């Protein structure tokens, strides 16, 4: 973030953009030049560096650009005052001497006072002249410098420009591909308020409590602080409203990953940091049991009215999604707010609650069918969770089977993959397989992964027989046969061969060495 005097913008027809520094050879050169100056001047005074930046300005580079780069580098340096005596102490001695001997209006009387203090402090008068104000900012010495690359510096500059423009932001709207827990946590920590809206994607609108009454830039600085967390994602879009102070008009400021991710410095955020040891233990335990469920940490937010809950985990299996939230040690106020939100949730959710929390408000929620409570004492135990998941899965499957059985389906395709069909209908592919295996539609054969029409099977038989005729000793290896079948789009090669009556003779475990021979007539 930069002082607003260093912000440079383009404004046209109600749209506003910072004038980003292109990652061009010329700009990289200026950046490199300043970085080198800082590296070379470790051990020297800050004012030398400022003079260097001023020189660059005078050579015709845009002064705000140069000053901003200089400022960003300044922040990466460590400056200290290394004088032999604490300058304020030295000054006190000097001023006291002046007070005692009278204000010096001639060079001679001045020298006398310096001499007196020099004796007292065992310094030379030269030292005193130099160190009297050695603690002023421009007099400090650069002792350490954490050098970025020129590219990093330009990207940092561009990010800072965008953030500085957001100081004048009245509200910001974004969508992002992840990082949700940290995003909503930051929103709260920064004293902001969000509201979500869903079209096909989840949009989050950010402003603050007092934004309800009037357009205010009060929250701009905190909104700017949120930007790095948003752009740390793979995909993101930001639309902000800027109240441009010079013209008092509302401008729109847009940013997205496709256009801007190269230009902006992406912050290094720690992924997968667990809030609590309980969460971490649960995740590793769960992954170890290989339950068939896919565990995802920090899934997309679950909408609860205009607010969201970002559950700790989502668990997915064949189209069925269950959210899991671990409610560990929290304040009552937190639980009340959570309960308030949970009332509005329209998704399956397991709440793993610490028994000691005995919160009445939470207990009152137990009646809600979409919420399932599992209590624990010291350590979260897996079996009850797995039992619930298994039951939920079976229940869903039973429902789906019933639905599928009553579904009037008529296929015209030569082949129907279960997973594709399941997705189209919105059920699990396990249910589809169960139903079709038990009762394949007229004219179709049920394979492990798909339905194949008898017509298609005949075609394949033709192809195989053709190949066998041309083959040496009228034999194909299993590998060759599989390739021919898969070339036709079928995945279940060995089931197909079995169905068509071909014999497979294994000579080892390698399919190259297994022979396929035609059925005996």
């Amino acid at each position, binding site marked *: 973030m930069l002082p607003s005097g260093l912000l*440079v913008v383009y404004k046209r027809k109600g749209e506003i953009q910072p004038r980003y520094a292109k990652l061009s050879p010329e700009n990289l050169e200026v950046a490199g030049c300043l970085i080198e100056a800082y590296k070379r001047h470790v051990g020297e005074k800050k004012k030398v560096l400022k003079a260097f930046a001023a020189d660059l300005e005078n050579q*015709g580079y845009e*002064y*705000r650009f140069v000053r901003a780069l200089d400022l960003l580098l300044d922040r990466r340096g460590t400056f200290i005052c290394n004088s032999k005596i604490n300058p*304020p102490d030295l*000054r*006190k001695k*000097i*001023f006291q*001497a*002046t*007070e005692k001997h*009278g*204000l*010096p*209006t*001639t060079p001679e009387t*001045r020298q006398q*006072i*310096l001499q007196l203090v020099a004796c007292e402090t065992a310094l030379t008068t030269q030292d005193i*002249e130099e160190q*009297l*104000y050695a*603690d*002023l*900012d421009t007099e400090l010495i650069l002792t350490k410098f954490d050098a970025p690359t020129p590219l990093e510096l330009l990207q940092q500059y561009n990010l800072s420009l965008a953030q500085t423009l957001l100081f004048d932001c009245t509200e910001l709207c974004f969508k992002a591909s992840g990082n949700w827990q940290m995003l909503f946590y930051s929103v709260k920590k920064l*004293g902001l*308020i*969000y*509201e979500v809206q869903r079209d096909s994607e989840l949009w989050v609108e950010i402003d*603050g*409590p*007092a934004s*309800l*009454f009037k357009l*205010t*830039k*009060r929250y701009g600085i905190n909104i700017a602080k949120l930007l790095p967390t948003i752009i740390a994602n793979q995909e993101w879009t930001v639309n902000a409203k800027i109240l441009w102070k*010079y013209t008092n008009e509302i401008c729109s400021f847009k940013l997205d990953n496709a256009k801007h991710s190269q230009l902006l410095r992406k912050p290094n955020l720690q992924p997968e940091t667990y809030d609590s040891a309980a969460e971490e233990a649960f995740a590793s335990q769960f992954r170890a049991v290989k339950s068939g469920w896919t565990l995802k940490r920090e899934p997309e937010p679950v909408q609860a*009215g*205009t*607010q969201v809950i970002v559950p700790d985990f989502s668990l997915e299996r064949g189209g069925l999604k269950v959210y899991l939230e671990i409610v560990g040690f929290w304040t009552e106020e937190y639980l009340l707010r959570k309960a308030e939100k949970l009332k509005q949730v329209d998704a399956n959710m397991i709440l793993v609650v610490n028994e000691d929390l005995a919160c009445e408000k939470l207990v009152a929620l137990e009646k809600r069918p979409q919420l399932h409570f599992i209590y624990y004492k010291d350590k979260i135990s897996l079996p009850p969770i797995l039992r619930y998941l298994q039951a939920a899965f079976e229940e869903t499957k039973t429902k789906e089977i019933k639905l599928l059985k009553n579904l009037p389906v008529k296929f015209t395709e030569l082949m129907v993959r279960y997973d594709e069909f399941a997705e189209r209908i919105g059920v699990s592919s396990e249910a589809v397989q169960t139903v079709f295996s038990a009762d394949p539609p007229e004219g179709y054969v049920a394979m492990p992964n798909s339905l194949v029409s008898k017509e298609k099977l005949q075609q394949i038989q033709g192809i195989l027989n053709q190949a066998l005729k041309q083959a040496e000793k009228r034999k194909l290896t299993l590998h060759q046969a599989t390739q021919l079948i898969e070339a036709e789009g079928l995945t279940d090669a060995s089931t197909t061969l079995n169905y068509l009556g071909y014999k497979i003779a294994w000579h080892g475990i390698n399919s190259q060495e297994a022979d396929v021979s035609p059925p005996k007539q």
Partner: protein
Amino acid sequence: MFRLWFDRGTLLLRGEVGSPYGRWDSRSGCYRVKACHYRDVLEYFGESRVKIEDAVLDLPAFEQLKCNVELRAYQSEALDKWLTAGKRGVLVLPTAAGKTFIALKAIDLLKTQTLIVVPTLDLLDQWKKRVRDYLGVDAGVVGGGENVVRMVTVATYDSAYSLAAQLGNRFLFLIFDEVHHLASPGYMQIAEMFVAPYRMGLTATYERSDQRHALLPLLVGDPVYSVSVEELTTAKHLSNYTFEKIAVDLTEAEQQSYDAQMKVFRRYLVERHVVLKSAFDFQRFIMTTGRDPRAREALLARNRALKVAVNSEAKLNLLAEKLETYKDEKVLIFTLYNDLVYMVSKRFLIPAVTHQTPREERREIMANFGNGKYKVIVTSQVLDEGVDVPDASVGVVLGGTGSRREYIQRLGRLLRKKEGKTAKLVEIISKETVEVGISRRRHQKTGEAQ
């Protein structure tokens, strides 16, 4: 049952109906009200005989005050006007007329949790000391790295603004020192985000050049009392002063450098047909410098010329003479640039106060100047507003920006009442430079006789 509580600078109201000031907030599923309407909301529900659970206030512990303030006649009159106006309003009094005492007396009368908002850290220290000395309690401090809330608390505008969300429900009485600051777009939110029903504004300069003082009645109340320097000086509450302006020639080298730089500036103005007559013209010119490198070069040349004139060696020589003349008096030297402050400090080996001076050191310097140990100090603009510099009898101005407020307050600092004292203000400017114009503008605006 309705419940009203404080949420980060606003009030939330949960219940089946809203209040006249409330607005439905879909984000939180209840009505939201501006914090400053707290009293109105309570009155509304009182009149409608609706019971509400009021969970708004979070006041610091009450402390017993021991007030020993005696008010002068005009101070009492000001306080009465404020009380009859419903404990709201702005008092306009010149610097050194004892605004602080009126406010302290008001705190004692109301005996309630009070926040005093001030523009600078110097004033923060000063108020803290006054509260200790005249109310007999330690003041809480918010700002300058401290954050302690007590019965009577002093905060800077900056801290009150940025912490309004946390502090807004902790006081019932707000005092704004130098209240003209409150009308700025940012700071006005302090007034909006605090629930305190009782409000007092203090200033010597009510009007703002941007006319935003028109907002103050809404934020703190109407101006209820006003008295001018002239009225008070004739009544002998403040000391009189004399004014002297001395123009010195630049040294030859300085003059050459000055002329060369001004030529660059003037050439630009002529070539581009730019006329700079008013402050507004100048602002527009500054905006052009962002786009036009030539305009920027011209501006830099002008600034360099001005710096030569302001920092002139000849002025320092004259300053040496003046310091010799006034060697038994307490002298305060003002300059525009920090460079010059340090130049003067180094040359005469006297204490300097700028925004860079460590707070502890500044406190010590001011205390020593107050008790007469240090006779001369030099400062840039940080002392400009309302800071007590006790008994300074001579002021020397080395450069300035030509603004009206600055001038009044610099004068004000010298106007400390002391028996038989006449304050002197000396302005040293360079001859034949734009500084003459700046100085003239300064006087025109105040309408001061020279």
